[in-house]
C-alpha cells in the first residue's frame, strides 16, 4: 500500500504518529508551501469577481461554482472522467503484458525497447497529436493501408472523432505505463511463476493467477497516474476531437485564453481537482478493503 499512498498524495498520507527524521524537515518545509500556495491562489481566484472586458477583482462569491451546476458542465466533467478512466484501463491492459514480455527478453533487447519508448516520451503532446492527425487522415494514413489490404473499400477519414482522441491518448501514455511497470516487473521473482508451473499452471495461468495478483499495487498505481495525466491533457482532445469530445481541460484553457474569465476557469479547475481526488481516495479505499 505504501507505493500507492506515495503516488496518490505524497507527504499527506503519512500517519501523523510516525516520527519524521530531522533531515526531512527542511525539504518538507520548502515543499509544503510550494505545493500548497498555488492551490490556495486558485481557490482565492475562483471566488473572485470577474469584470467583463477587464480583469477580476477580489471578492467572495459562489457565482462561478453555481454556474458549474449547469447540466452541460456536469456532462463535460463526467465525460472527462470517463475518458480518463477508459484510457487508463486500455493503456494498462496493453502496457502491463507488454512490459512483462519485454522484461523476459535478453538485456540487449530490453535496452532497445527502453530507448525506443524514451524517444516517444520525448515527443511533445502537440507533435504526437499532429502525427496522429496525419496518420488518421483520408489521403495519407492508415485508411489507405486498410484499402490496400482489402479491409476497406475506399479510404475514409478516421479523425476528428472519439476513436482518434482515444488512440492518440493511449499512445501518449503507454510509455509511462511501461516505465512504471518496468522496475517492479524486472525485479519480479521468477521462481514464483516457475513454482506455479511445477504445480500445473501453463504460461497463461501463471500470468493470471500469479503475476497479476502479485503486481496489483503497481497496476493500481499506474491506473491512477494515467487517469490523472489524461484529465490534464488538452491538446489531444482539442486537436483530434470534435467539440463534443473536448475535455474539462479544453474548457478551462478556453476560459483562460479566449474568454479571460480566470475566476470561472479556477472554479472549474478546483471542481475537477476535488472530484478526481475524491475518486482516487474512494478507489484506494475500495482497494484496501478488498485485501
Amino acid at each position: 500500500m505504501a507505493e500507492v499512498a506515495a503516488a496518490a498524495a505524497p507527504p499527506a498520507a503519512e500517519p501523523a504518529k510516525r516520527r519524521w527524521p530531522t533531515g526531512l524537515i527542511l525539504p518538507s518545509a520548502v515543499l509544503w508551501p510550494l505545493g500548497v500556495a498555488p492551490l490556495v491562489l486558485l481557490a482565492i481566484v475562483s471566488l473572485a469577481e470577474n469584470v467583463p472586458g477587464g480583469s477580476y477583482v477580489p471578492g467572495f462569491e459562489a457565482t462561478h461554482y453555481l454556474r458549474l451546476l449547469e447540466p452541460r458542465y456536469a456532462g463535460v466533467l463526467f465525460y472527462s472522467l470517463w475518458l480518463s478512466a477508459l484510457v487508463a484501463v486500455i493503456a494498462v491492459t496493453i502496457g502491463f503484458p507488454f512490459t512483462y514480455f519485454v522484461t523476459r527478453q535478453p538485456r540487449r533487447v530490453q535496452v532497445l525497447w527502453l530507448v525506443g519508448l524514451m524517444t516517444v516520451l520525448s515527443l511533445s503532446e502537440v507533435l504526437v497529436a499532429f502525427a496522429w492527425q496525419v496518420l488518421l487522415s483520408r489521403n495519407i494514413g492508415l485508411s489507405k493501408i486498410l484499402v490496400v489490404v482489402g479491409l476497406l473499400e475506399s479510404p475514409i477519414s478516421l479523425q476528428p472523432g472519439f476513436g482518434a482522441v482515444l488512440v492518440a491518448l493511449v499512445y501518449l501514455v503507454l510509455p509511462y505505463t511501461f516505465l512504471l511497470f518496468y522496475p517492479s516487473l524486472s525485479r519480479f521473482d521468477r521462481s514464483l511463476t516457475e513454482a506455479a508451473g511445477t504445480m500445473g499452471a501453463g504460461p497463461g495461468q501463471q500470468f493470471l493467477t500469479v503475476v497479476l495478483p502479485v503486481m496489483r499495487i503497481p497496476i493500481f498505481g499506474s491506473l491512477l497516474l494515467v487517469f490523472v495525466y489524461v484529465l490534464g491533457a488538452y491538446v489531444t482532445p482539442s486537436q483530434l476531437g470534435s467539440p463534443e469530445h473536448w475535455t474539462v481541460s479544453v474548457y478551462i484553457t478556453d476560459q483562460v485564453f479566449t474568454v479571460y474569465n480566470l475566476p470561472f476557469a479556477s472554479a472549474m479547475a478546483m471542481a475537477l481537482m476535488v472530484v478526481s481526488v475524491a475518486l482516487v481516495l474512494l478507489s484506494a479505499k475500495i482497494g484496501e478493503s478488498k485485501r
Partner: protein
Amino acid sequence: MAIDLRIEDVEKLYPGGVRALDKVSLTVPEGALVCFLGPSGCGKTTLLRIVAGLEQASGGRVLHGTRDISQLPTHERGFGMVFQSLALFPHLSVGGNIAYALRLAGVDRGRRDEKVAQLLDLIQLPGIADRPVAKLSGGQRQRVAIARALAQEPRLLLLDEPMSALDAKLRESLQVELRLLQKRLKITTILVTHDQREAMTMADLIVVMNKGAIEQIDTPSRIYAEPASLFVADFIGQTNLIKAEARDGAVIVEGAAIPGVALPANAGRDVTVSIRPESLRLHAATAAPANAIRLNVAFVRNVGSQVEVHLNGGDLHLVGSCSPREWPGFSEGDAVAAELPPAACRVFAGHG
C-alpha cells in the same frame, strides 16, 4: 517395473560456449532420496531445473520410467518442487498456497480444505491455513513450501537448496524431519545442496558434481570412506592432502616410506595422499615407529566432542583428531611423530 528417473547424456551449453553440464548420466531409483552435491557453479541446480523442465537441455534426454519427458513442459510433468527462495505466493494465505495446484486441477472446495488440513498436520502446523504467508517464521515458511509441493501428490519431489536460508540449528532438525517424512511417504526425491553435512544426513545416494561433470555416485558412507577422486576427498569432510612420491610400490612422505598402500593404476611419480584427521596416529617423538613423520604441535583445540591438533613440520601441515578420552595430552611445541596407517590412506595421481 519401478518408475526410476533416468538422466542420459544430458548436456547444457550456454551461448558463448560455457559448458554448464557435460554429458551427465545417472539414475534416481524409485523411492530414493538422491542428493546432487557440489560447490556453486558445478551444474547441480541446472541439472535439477532440466529435470523440472524449467530449462531445456542442449543434448541428451530425461526418462521417467520408460517415458521420454525431455520435451514435456513443466506444468505437464507433475513434479513438486521447493525453490531456494521458497517462492510462496505473497498474495495467498497458507491454505491458498497449499491448495494452489488442487485449484488448478479443479478439485472442489471441500476436498481442497480437507487436503490442506491433512498436509498441515503432516508438517506439524495444524490450523494455520488462514494465516498470511508474510506472518510466518522462517521454519514455518519452509514447511509450508514443502506441504505445497506435496499437495499434488507428485511423482517426483525436487528440492533446490531449500534450507539454505535457515539458521544452523533449525536446518539440522528440519533435515532429519524431512528425511523421515520422505521415507514415510516413499516419495522419489532429488535434493540439491552445497552442504555436505546435509547431503550425508538425508541422502540414499550422493551425486558429487564438479565443473559440470559427475565425480562420484555412491552412498554417503562410501563417498566418505572411499572418495573416487582428489576433488571428492577434499570436498567431503575434512582431510589431509599430502604431496608424496610413489617409488617401488611404496609411497614416500617426507622421507618416510609407507608400504602396502593401494596405488591407483594411473599413478606416476607424483602422488597425493589423502588421510582423514581421525585416522592419523600420534606418538611421542621418543617412541616414534619407523614409518612415522616427525612434526611439532602448533595448536590444540578441544571442542568437547573431540580434540583437534594442528601439526607443522617443514612445508607440511597436518590436522589430527580423536575423542577426548583417547587424547595423549600433548601440548603446543611438543615434538611428535605421526603414523599414517596404510589402510586409511587414499592415494591419487598427481599433486592436485
